[in-house]
């Protein structure tokens, strides 16, 4: 029991964190590396502390967070809807899927400048860039999930005279949920990237915009501080999705395996 809580608890990751940042600090100081090349963790903490209170920084966090969440919602919802249509209609699959895949293989970074031209330097272009990235994981997982129902469960339903709609509602939809949540989890993390890419291409506000500014000014500690905030946002959003997932798909254990062989 003791080893289990030791293995499962936060102690081990904290230990690696301490070693990593401690080593980083030590190397920068011992080798006398200039801050402009690699700032020590202590100066990043100072920079972070300094910016947290500033209105500019807080506004940037709000803007980027809004782009991430709105873009994620738009992309995920479209992916979900198109996924249902394609999974349920072989005709729609033949008509649309090749083009969806072709669109997916297109690097979104390359498309981003066009979207900025079409939708301007404001929030809309960032939301749409984010949506194009969040779209595909939901689409692919929804299609796969709706087709993942075990044949014996469908046979069971049919033997009790279930209609196609009843099989869909009572089995296919439920069996698709774990897949859909995998898609949501991937999409929310990619959405952070989407919003930053959008801001890099052209923006007037946001963490990506702030990051560029700090970078141009050779404020390396400030740049690293923003990177830290971005990864923190990613981790929190990911954890939020997992929290909802555990509530909705309560019959699966955390490893994602169905806890029942039936």
């Amino acid at each position, binding site marked *: 029991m003791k080893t289990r809580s030791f293995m499962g608890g936060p102690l081990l990751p904290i230990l690696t964190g301490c070693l990593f940042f401690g080593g980083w600090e030590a190397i920068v100081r011992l080798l006398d590396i200039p801050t402009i090349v690699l700032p020590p963790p202590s100066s990043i903490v100072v920079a972070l502390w300094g910016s947290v209170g500033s209105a500019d920084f807080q506004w940037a966090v709000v803007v980027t967070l809004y782009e991430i969440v709105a873009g994620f919602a738009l992309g995920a919802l479209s992916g979900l809807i198109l996924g249902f249509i394609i999974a349920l209609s072989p005709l729609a699959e033949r008509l649309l899927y090749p083009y969806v895949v072709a669109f997916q293989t297109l690097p979104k970074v390359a498309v981003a400048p066009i979207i900025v031209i079409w939708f301007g330097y404001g929030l809309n272009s960032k939301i749409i860039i984010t949506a194009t990235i969040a779209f595909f994981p939901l689409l692919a997982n929804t299609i796969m999930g709706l087709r993942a129902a075990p044949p*014996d*469960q469908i*046979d*069971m*339903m*049919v*033997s*009790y*005279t*279930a209609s196609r709609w*009843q099989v869909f509602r*009572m*089995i296919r939809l*439920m069996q698709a949920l774990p897949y859909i949540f995998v898609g949501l989890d991937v999409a929310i993390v990619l959405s952070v990237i989407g919003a930053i890419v959008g801001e890099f291409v052209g923006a007037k506000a946001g963490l990506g915009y702030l990051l560029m500014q700090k970078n141009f000014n050779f404020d390396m500690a400030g740049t690293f501080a923003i990177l830290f905030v971005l990864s923190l946002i990613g981790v929190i959003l990911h954890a939020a999705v997992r929290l909802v997932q555990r509530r909705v798909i*309560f*019959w699966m254990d955390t490893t994602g395996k*169905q*806890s*029942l*062989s*039936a």
Partner: protein
Amino acid sequence: MVSLAQRLPIRPDPREHRDIALMRIAGVEKTYLTRDGEEVHALRDIHLDIRAGEFISIVGPSGCGKSTLLKILAGILARSRGEITMRGRALTGPSRDLGVVFQAPVLLPWLTVLQNVMVPVKIQRANRTEGEARARELLGMVGLSGFERKYPSELSGGMQQRVGICRALVHDPAILLMDEPFGALDAMTRETMNEELQRIWSERRKTILLVTHSIPEAIHLADRVVVMTPRPGRIVEVIDVDLPRPRTLDMQNTPEFGRYAGRLRRHFHSHATFDA
């Protein structure tokens, strides 16, 4: 040695059973086409009359088509030829008059025990209050009172299969079709389940068709044992079991029981191994 029954297809005299047959299987065949275009007979010329209240075991080695036959009767597999009638009316698909118990319990992990038993009631849009009362009563009968709100993952394999049996009975079907329902259970649990099935059958006056690969199980429970052999899957003999009821496990050690078992085993000497 080829017995007479093996050479002659078993055809019941239609005049004799017309009034008492609850389900009539007449000339049912199932053929598959292999990739090379070769025709494989999974089932050939199956004739069987099932009387109301009867307990029939179908026994045979794997590949004899016994599960295929059950799936066809359940309406989840199409037959290639032949007629199935139920109370004189043609059976063309799944029917509310049937309850199916599968090899695995096939419970839905996101539903509670009670909700799982209620699945047929929900599908058939039957009266919910009556259905729930019957579901609770059935769960009580198999010793699962107090487990209504548990989830399948909290139950043992034997308990899960009991829930599966309750689900097959909740809409009060005339015939219970069981496809090797206890195959995955250990020997001890299996014996207990056999006792329970015997009790359910006598208390509920159901007609039961049980597919099994266990010869003792087949004899222990059945009024008639249907023997099937593979390539092509066909019925080679139907044996009446005249052992008194209720049957006990001790009966399996009697000479009469041994004679039935011996008679069944004769058919399988040249075939795959049997657990018995």
